[in-house]
């Protein structure tokens, strides 16, 4: 059977070409449908879990129109709308160099508990499910746009999802109180914005599956505008949390400049989760061990 795409370039004559056309089309439809359909018995052993969840995601948007305005020329002006185009990584399994995520024993224990909850069909409640601020870096991973708004003394990141907000104070003397999103202080290192976040009000889920971070975690981001074949915001994350990891570790994300995503959809999750009967009944409270770090 011909593979999808093999039709391209062939002559449109009847007979053999017609069979190729149908084969190509059916193969393409089958592969697209398979990407959406449930996998009987789960994915094959050794399958990359993130490849499975990537297939669930929104397709990348088309490129910006040619007449779209570029970002400001000043490298320290990040104002505008940005969007995480790449597939959401449900479970950050390696650092940016391909080394396995350096969970320590406590981190592995938490992950095993959370993975088991998914396989058992008793997934845990977390900030996302409750519509509480989800903390960083989770908020930066979602496939929904955010706006950067800069003023004299601060940089606001306003997110469509969860109507989330991160305020980066550029004057450390004005650092805000501990909060769900942590308390973020920034400074410029040349044209790289360095954001240091600590002071989490509660432990955070680093990713969807539940890589943990304690209240004492420290997250550093190095953010800069970069022109590849289009404008992106490059963000190198470093997480330092001896409670759950054997060493600080880093991963990278890129966000596309998308002025066409400036207007947000509404995300009024509290209309559901704030109701007395609003929490999803399929979710359960996460049990904790008495000796868990920082709980």
């Amino acid at each position, binding site marked *: 059977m011909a593979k999808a795409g093999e039709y391209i370039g062939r002559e449109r004559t009847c007979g053999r070409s017609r069979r190729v056309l149908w084969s190509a089309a059916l193969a393409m439809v089958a592969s697209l449908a398979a990407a959406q359909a449930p996998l009987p018995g789960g994915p094959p052993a050794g399958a990359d879990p993130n490849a499975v969840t990537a297939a669930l995601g929104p397709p990348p948007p088309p490129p910006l129109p040619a007449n779209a305005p570029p970002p400001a020329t000043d490298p320290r002006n990040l104002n505008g709308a940005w969007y995480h185009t790449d597939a959401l990584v449900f479970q950050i399994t390696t650092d940016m160099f391909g080394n396995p995520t350096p969970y320590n024993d406590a981190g592995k224990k938490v992950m095993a508990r959370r993975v088991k909850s998914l396989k058992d069909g008793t997934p845990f409640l977390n900030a996302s499910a409750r519509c509480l601020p989800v903390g960083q870096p989770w908020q930066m991973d979602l496939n929904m746009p955010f706006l950067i708004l800069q003023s004299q003394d601060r940089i606001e990141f306003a997110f469509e999802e969860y109507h989330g907000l991160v305020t980066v104070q550029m004057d450390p003397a004005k650092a805000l109180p501990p909060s769900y*999103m942590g308390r973020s202080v920034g400074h410029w290192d040349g044209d790289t914005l360095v954001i240091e976040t600590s002071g989490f009000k509660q432990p955070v889920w680093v990713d969807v599956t539940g890589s943990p971070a304690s209240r004492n975690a420290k997250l550093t981001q190095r953010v800069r505008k970069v022109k590849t074949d289009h404008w992106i915001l490059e963000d190198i994350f470093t997480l330092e949390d001896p409670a759950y990891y054997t060493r600080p570790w880093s991963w990278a994300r890129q966000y596309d400049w998308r002025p066409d995503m400036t207007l947000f959809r509404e995300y*009024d999750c509290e209309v559901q989760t704030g109701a007395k009967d609003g929490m999803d009944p399929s979710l359960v409270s996460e049990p904790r061990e008495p000796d868990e770090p920082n709980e």
Partner: protein
Amino acid sequence: MLSLAVSASATAAAEPANLEGMWKIEAPQMAFRPEGGVVPFTAAGRKRYQDNKRALAEKRLGDFDFATARCASPGLPRLMLTPQRFRIWQREGIILMQFEWNRLLRQIDMGGLVSPQIRVVSGPGPVVSEEALVGRSTPISRGHWEGDTLVVTSEGFADNTLIDNLVPHGYDLKLTEHLRLRGPDVLEDRIRIEDPATFSRAWDTVVTYRRVADEAFAENVCLDSLPVNR
């Protein structure tokens, strides 16, 4: 740092008026005061209003006031009654009101943004198509300048919010606001409210805000203030 502050505020400065800054309502109030003294209800509107009053008296907030009972968005125009602060940002093609209360954001499309806006919830597509089906508590408003007055219209409402603490509205609510500086530190929002199912005619109300120090908001999470057992 200076250069970025200059280029951002240059956008605001290039517009007929600069409304940027932090604002706070001058006289906190739960209900809009209609010009002329009375809200001109239709019979159906009055009935819903009285049902709401009864529910409030009987402490059944959850029956009609989702903002108070659940921390849902108060929507428009009720957000303009917030007793907390809001920050106005003026950027190319858009004006934003960033509310202290529960981190909510209101967007006013000034035209000129790159189009088409391409998204629906789950992939590419026109941005308004899905929301047009059910409306929003806080539609994307459309704005333009008339002299130094920002004229803002809002349509495409959901029907599960209130005009203020008691007054109901339906899907066909339309708001027209005239925002202008009455002085360097005083912002006025004149709001015209129209909804033929609820009100027998359009009615107007005015809210005034004072400029306050432009200090960042501490994180504001409404859900933390809801009683756990309710």
